[in-house]
């Protein structure tokens, strides 16, 4: 601990860094004193709810997306043609079009078909179809699956063939090979990119505000509309996202350290 601290201190206590930190502090103090922040207490509850919604949309969509990415990657790397081609087409389409367009296609495009099918309103799914968040979750998950599916394809392919052959010659079943050798190694290869991909996914979440989901971005927009204060909510919002990005990076660093323990590099 003390060694880590002294290393940290060595990095920070350099004259030019101290000067820069002083300037940064000056800017923060100036911003705190001369900009308008009186709205914060009034919106703090709403903001916390918004942050929570952003976080669970992010976490859940990454989980679902990753669960889809594994079969997508496997199908492309080793699947038969009738699986590999659709998987490839899916990844290409997702990666080749803007997320905003995908979101609007799924929310407004599907919505425009509802009036033609009156039975939809009687169906059991209707309470969910009426809300906006299922569409946001679906679109974000599919998007993550598309990008991560491409990475998993590379990861599956990069596992040395010799290991798989050795396992086969030992009489392991195909499923056992996948579960015990192929998948763990592919996952280990994909893990370093996963943190970066999760940050990219976080940066995509504010788009859901355009389909009426009230995430932290939507809360900041509301402050902007209610008070006509333009920059302050945006700056605070940028800070919130930077903190979340920092936490994601930290979490993946710890995860990677744990995952790599005992692995020969």
């Amino acid at each position: 601990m003390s060694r880590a601290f002294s290393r940290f201190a060595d990095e920070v206590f350099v004259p030019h860094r101290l000067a820069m930190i002083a300037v940064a502090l000056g800017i923060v103090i100036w911003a705190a004193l001369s900009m308008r922040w009186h709205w914060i207490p009034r919106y703090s509850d709403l903001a916390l709810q918004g942050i929570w919604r952003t976080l669970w949309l992010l976490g859940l969509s990454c989980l679902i997306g990753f669960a889809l990415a594994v079969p997508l990657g496997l199908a492309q790397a080793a699947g038969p043609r009738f699986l590999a081609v659709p998987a490839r087409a899916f990844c290409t389409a997702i990666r080749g079009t803007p997320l905003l367009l995908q979101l609007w296609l799924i929310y407004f495009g599907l919505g425009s078909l509802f009036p033609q099918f009156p039975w939809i309103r009687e169906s059991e799914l209707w309470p969910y179809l009426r809300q906006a968040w299922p569409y946001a979750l679906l679109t974000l998950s599919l998007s993550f699956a598309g990008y991560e599916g491409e990475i998993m394809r590379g990861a599956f392919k990069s596992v040395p063939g010799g290991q798989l052959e050795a396992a086969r010659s030992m009489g392991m079943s195909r499923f056992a090979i996948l579960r015990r050798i192929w998948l763990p190694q592919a996952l280990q290869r994909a893990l370093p990119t996963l943190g970066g991909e999760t940050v990219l996914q976080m940066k995509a979440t504010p788009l859901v505000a355009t389909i009426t989901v009230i995430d932290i971005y939507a809360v900041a927009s509301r402050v902007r509309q209610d008070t006509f204060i333009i920059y302050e909510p945006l700056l605070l919002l940028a800070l919130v996202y930077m903190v979340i990005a920092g936490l994601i990076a930290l979490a993946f660093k710890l995860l990677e350290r744990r995952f790599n323990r005992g692995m020969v590099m």
Partner: protein
Amino acid sequence: MKKLTLLATTAFLAAAGMAQADQVRIGIAAEPYPPFSSPDAAGNWEGWEIEIIDAICTAAELDCVITPTSWDGIIPSLVSGRIDAIMNSMSITADRLQTIDFSDPYYNTPTVIVGQRDMEMDATPEGLAGLVLGVQVATIHQTYAQTYFEGETELRTYQTQDEVNQDLAAGRIDATQADSLALDDFLATDAGQCCELKGAVAHDEDILGAGVGAGVRKGDDELREAINRGIAAILEDGTYDEITSRYFATSIYGN
């Protein structure tokens, strides 16, 4: 070094295109808001308000150019100088007057609730309790609904009124609050058959304002007075009534 900076600035300015000295950029929202302003397939804007802008500018001898921008950023655009005036069915309210100035009003319309035909509701907080109400962001309707309906009623905020109408037709929301003239137009379409007029909301001058005016930057009195002259002139010489008669059955000037 100084020379280089100057050169770079000049090059940048040349590329950016200097605004012509006397051109007035009229900001409108870049999305359909029939019958006031909507784009046609050829990329032109048309509608009652577009014609009125034209008439006012001609009467006031202003060289105007229509500049589409995003509705929820239209006031920041005005304040930061991307546009010079807002003429996009924006009501004159006390809140907005803290940030921008307004010309004299050029039309006025009641605020109404339109909802699903097969649902019982009226335009009161009790009548809307338990329902889902859609409003356009950054409008007097959003402020009004937040003040009177939010809590008992679930509010959904959309970027455009067009998207609210679309979700009303899809059945995702039960009702919307908006200007009666814009909703009349929607109710006349195929998609609007889902719904009907449920009544006008109780008036609140502070929130709903005193009619629609042209928004200008604070202190831009020259432009504000020019627009006022234009409005007075087209009301005087009958141009206003002529344009209105082609879009609406009755006068929409108010009072």
